[in-house]
Each structure stands twice: as C-alpha cells, then as structure tokens.
C-alpha cells in the first residue's frame, strides 16, 4: 500500500457567502498522477488554491505527509515542496524569461545551471526568448514558462491548473509527456485539465467534481470508459 502524500478532508470554501467547494475529500498517493476534472466553475481551481494556501478554507483538514497545512502561508507551503502552476499563467511580466525561471527556484540555494538546461530542452522556445520580458510572450509561450518555472523549484508535489490551455496540439502532447516524465522521476502530480481525454489517460487516479462536490472517483482508465463521463466531458469522439 502506497502512502498518501496529500490528504484533503472535508474541504469547504466559500466566497462571500457562496460556497464554491462543499466538503470534498481527496487523497493523493505519493508518486502518482491524480487528476480533477469537472465543468467550468465546479471548484477545481479553488481546491488547488486552498492546498497552496492562497485561499483560506472555511473548514478543512489538509494533511501533507501527515502534517496539517491548513492556515499556513503560501510561502511556507511552497517551502515544504508543494508547487502550483496557477490558472492563467501568471508569469511576472516585468521580469525576463530567465529571471522568471530563476525566481521559480527562489527558495533553492544550490546551482541552477542543470535545471535551466533541462527546462530549455523541454521548451526550446524559451531558450530563444531568454531575455524577452515575459509580459510580451505569446499566450502559449507564457504557459510554457509557467510550467518551467514551477519545475525549477524541484517540488515534491506539483499541482497544475490547466497546463495545456492555449497550447498548440504538438505542445499539448509534449506537456503530457513531461507530466509523465517528471512523475517517473518521483514527483507527485495533481492535475486539473479540461482536456479530460488526455488527463485521464495519464492519470493513476481521477476525481470528478461538480458544483463543489465530488461525484465520482476511480482510476483514470475506469473513468475514461465510463459512459456518463464520455457524455458529459469527453465530447464527440473523433
């Protein structure tokens, strides 16, 4: 039996009275890829934000390696090894591509050279734009940068909120490959994707969230085969 690196119990989040997340339970086993799928506004991003401390849940217990992290500040949570690739890229527009990558490794004290080369090998486009201000990158380039930046922190758990948004088909495939590669290196991945097809394919475990509650869970393959899921999230099959 694998140990759970993250255990979320009864997470409730409300924005000014409106409950966006209504008591969900999620367990993330160490070294696995776990994905959350669900319609727009279901509360997926809110869940990730709660884990990383950006949103204060109304009620919850979030255990990381058995340690309670609810109420801790985001910088503390990051320092423990949980990184988030935020929704909407959020690169630092006034920093260069290189600086964005460096700031991803803000808490690290060791040499960055190797990791930079690794990121550049994943996204050659970023190498080309090393000195460009991140704010002027195209949408897709910014998305690559956001993923690269998160990887720079050498996390134990990486949470990605729609990493494939706005990427060209080729790059989307790359992203999923990267997800699998880093997972093989031992990093736990918690993934939100609209591209449910791909996400379920790579996921060991998946949750379906609808209007703030979990309606289904299982292995990626199980959900991929589920008729309801096909109907609601997978669209017309080609």
């Amino acid at each position: 039996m694998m140990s759970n690196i993250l255990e979320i119990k009864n997470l409730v989040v409300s924005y000014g009275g409106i409950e966006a997340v209504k008591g969900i339970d999620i367990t993330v086993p160490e070294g696995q890829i776990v994905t959350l799928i669900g319609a727009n506004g279901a509360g997926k991003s809110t869940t990730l934000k709660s884990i990383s401390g950006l949103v204060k849940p109304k009620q919850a217990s979030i255990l990381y390696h058995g340690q309670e992290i609810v109420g801790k500040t985001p910088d503390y949570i990051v320092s423990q090894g949980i990184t988030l690739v935020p929704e909407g890229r959020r690169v630092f527009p006034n920093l260069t591509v290189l600086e964005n990558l460096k700031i991803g490794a803000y808490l690290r004290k060791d040499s960055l050279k190797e990791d930079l080369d690794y990121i550049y090998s994943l996204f050659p486009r970023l190498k080309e734009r090393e000195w460009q201000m991140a704010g002027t990158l195209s949408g897709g380039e910014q998305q690559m940068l956001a993923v690269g930046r998160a990887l720079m922190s050498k996390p134990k758990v990486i949470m990605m909120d729609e990493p494939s948004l706005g990427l060209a088909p080729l790059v989307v495939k790359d992203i999923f490959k990267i997800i699998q590669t880093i997972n093989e290196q031992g990093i736990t991945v918690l993934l939100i994707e609209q591209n449910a097809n791909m996400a379920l394919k790579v996921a060991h475990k998946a949750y379906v969230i609808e209007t703030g509650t979990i309606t289904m869970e299982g292995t990626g393959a199980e959900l991929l085969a589920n008729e309801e899921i096909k109907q609601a999230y997978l669209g017309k099959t080609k």
Partner: protein
Amino acid sequence: MSDKKTILSVKDITMQFGGVVAVNNLTLKVREGEIVSLIGPNGAGKTTAFNVITGVYAPTNGEVKFHGNTIISNFPKGKMDKLYAGENKGKYKKTLEPTPDKITKLGIARTFQNIRLFKELTVLENVLIAKHMRMKANIFADTFRLNHKEEQKMREDSLELLRILDLYDVKDEIASSLPYGKQRHLEIARALATEPTLLLLDEPAAGLNPQETDELTDFIKDIRDKFHLTIFMIEHHMNLVMDISDWIYVIDFGKQIANGTPVEIQNNQHVIDAYLGVADDE
C-alpha cells in the same frame, strides 16, 4: 476556390517589436460568409495578426483591405527603417493607422484571447456599451433623454441578442461572476452588438472542455447564419477547427506555411511537422 467576394484582404503585413519579427510578410484573404481559421504554433504571430487587423498595433509594413477599401497601410519609418526584416519596403507608400474604434465602426469586431469583459458591469451593460458606437444622439441629447426612442431600441436589441445567445437569464449578473464558458459567450455577444460583418475570434474554445467545445462549434455556425457573418478565427482545438472551417491558414514564425481546406491541411506534412504532430491512434 469559390467565387465569393473577398471581404478581408491582408497584404504583406509585417509586425516587428524591435528586433522580434512577430508577423512576417503575411498575406491572406477571407471570403464573405465563410469561416476561416488561422492556426499555427504558439508564438507564431496569430494574435498579433489580429491585433494589426483591428488597429491595436500599427503594422511595420503592409496593407489591410476591407470590403475592397484600404483601411490600414504602413511602411517602415524611423528606427524601424533599419530594423525592418521584410522584402516589401517600398511597396506601401501610404500611412493609414486608424485606432481600434474606427475599425470596429467599419464592421470588424473581435474577442480576446484572454477574456476582456467589463468585469464590474452587468451582462446587459456589457452589451449596451457595444451598442453605444451606433448611437446617433450627442451627449447633450442623451443626457437629457431627448433620444428616448433610440435608447429604448438599443435596449430592446440588446435584450434580443442576449435571448438569442442564451444569456437572458443572467442579464443582471455582474460579468465577472459568470462561469468561464458563459463569459466566452458574452464576449461574442458583445462583439455581435457592434453589428459587424466580420467577426474575429481569438481562441474561443480555450478553457472549455471537449463537451463545451462541441457546443461552441454549433454555436459559431449558428451565429454565422443568423447574423450573416464572416468569421475569422484563431484556435488550437483541432476538432473545432477541422469541423467548421471552410478554409484554413497556417502560419509559423509569422509566415504563412500553408493554406487550404481542412482535409488538405490535415494531410500537409509541413503542417503536421510544425504544428499538428502525428495523429493520435484512436
């Protein structure tokens, strides 16, 4: 090729940001009533091309014609004269750099890659604002309600539009409180309210799940027919693109690398290498 009229014609457009050549001698045509897609790798210059067509950026060089009239034209000047990387330096002698509002008035509307609604205003207000441009009354008449009838009509038209686009129920909601998919719809509704003949959509399906993307496909066709539009669209969802496009342009590094029908594009090796990748096994 059909014999439909060309509504938009982009000629030799180059857009440079200092040394960065975002769009490079791009030439393309959009014919009336069609749905034309613009695809290409990230950073290929698609959004920039849209920005040039809608007047957000004045191009470094080139010309844009709409309904046969030149609406934008420029040639490299000043610092750009030295940096210019294209080949058609002397071809366009005129300088015509209208602001985006002028372009919109001519009948070209757009949506944005990153949704840009009037966030704190209601859905209805968002649409009404788009109608403002077509209003005849001046500020005095409008303030003192001398144009009561016009205002009334504006309101009715807007509500009608919201009804058609399935946004009537949320008309009094604050725009930013809508779910993402609805916000995309509202952006389109708002663009339609400017009464365009050409609609530019920049990644309308970004952030939608496959199911919602399918719905969008039908929706785009619907509005094209209902409003007699020509649609020019940037998209990375190939299902959507291949499904509804009459014609597809592919660009890479700012240059056109292919154009043709969906079937042609899907089988173009060049495009597969640069952009599509090998088709999935399913």
